[in-house]
């Protein structure tokens, strides 16, 4: 208990001459003399004030900054997917399959390396968005040679494939397309998949 008080308070019952027996609080702060309850109460009021200040500053700065995030937006799956694909070109599963059959698909797996190891689309490269820069030269060269880069991840509203496609576009790689919910749809359609590799 003395540990909590941070001082060398003695725990237990004390009796001063001519005084009734009283209990010394082990939770008392030796410097301020406040009990733990009062310390907590004071801290709670301070915390609420800091919280209110932060909220007020956040609301004010949002009003001042033009073009920032709206207060309310729809986060339905359709809206999220539409936002992800803004400025990007989607590819249908059928077209991706036909491109792969024609030997022109360059699949880019945007998921984490562990998921890639467990299974991926045929001939895919493991390119998490954070590693796009290291692959941009190679992908640009293959795209110029006629391959079609197709980014995919897993889940309808997974943001990684769109993030990867956008980064590659910014690095000058043209014609990158996004296969929404690529891994699950490809696998569930019974198309061939690979495992292992890097």
């Amino acid at each position, binding site marked *: 208990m003395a*540990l909590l008080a941070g001082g060398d308070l003695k725990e237990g019952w004390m009796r001063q001459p001519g005084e009734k027996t009283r209990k010394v609080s082990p939770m008392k702060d030796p410097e301020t003399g406040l009990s733990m309850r009062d310390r907590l109460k*004071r801290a709670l009021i301070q915390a609420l004030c800091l919280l209110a200040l*932060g909220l007020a500053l956040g*609301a004010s*700065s949002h009003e001042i900054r033009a073009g920032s995030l709206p207060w309310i937006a729809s*986060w339905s799956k359709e809206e999220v997917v539409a936002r992800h694909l803004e400025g990007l070109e989607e590819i249908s599963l059928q077209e991706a399959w036909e491109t792969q059959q024609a030997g022109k698909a360059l699949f880019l797996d945007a998921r984490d390396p562990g*998921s890639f190891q467990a299974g991926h689309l045929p001939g895919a490269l493991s390119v998490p968005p954070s590693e796009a820069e290291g692959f941009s030269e190679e992908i640009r060269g293959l795209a110029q040679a006629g391959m079609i880069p197709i980014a995919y991840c897993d889940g309808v509203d997974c943001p990684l494939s769109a993030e990867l496609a956008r980064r590659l576009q910014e690095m000058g790689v043209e014609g990158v397309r996004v296969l929404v919910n690529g891994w699950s749809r490809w696998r569930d359609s019974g198309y061939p998949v690979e495992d292992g590799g890097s």
Partner: protein
Amino acid sequence: MIRIVSSQWLSLLFRMALGGIFLYAGVVKSQDPAGFAQAIYNYRILPGWAINPLAILLPWVEMVLGAALVLGIWIPGASLLASGLLGIFALALCINLARGLDIDCGCFSTASSGAGSTTWYFLRDILLMAMAIEVFFFDRQWVPLVGLLARRRN
């Protein structure tokens, strides 16, 4: 061991580190509220209407909290608020750990690496929360701005 845990130097170190982390996190998030909103969405816990307000307001709460810890203003309140925020964050991580959700992309990953990163975030969060609790109990307001100003006035 007790002396080390209750050391004022350790409290000062923890307070500065926590304050710096909250300040940095708040500044980075406030620069990209849309990206932060996506990160909140990836947790799949909050209803849609709450995502944007939280993405707009939380970075500023973090910045105020970080500044208070670094400058030594209302340290008990700041460390209590930090513990509370980190506690809520730990709970959210725990829920997603149990659900097997990879919070980096908001996808239910079958691979272990997704849950691995969530575990790492959880452990890091618990460590930060322990630091905030230590500051709450043992910080003796070394180098506090309020104290310095009061001394100058005297």
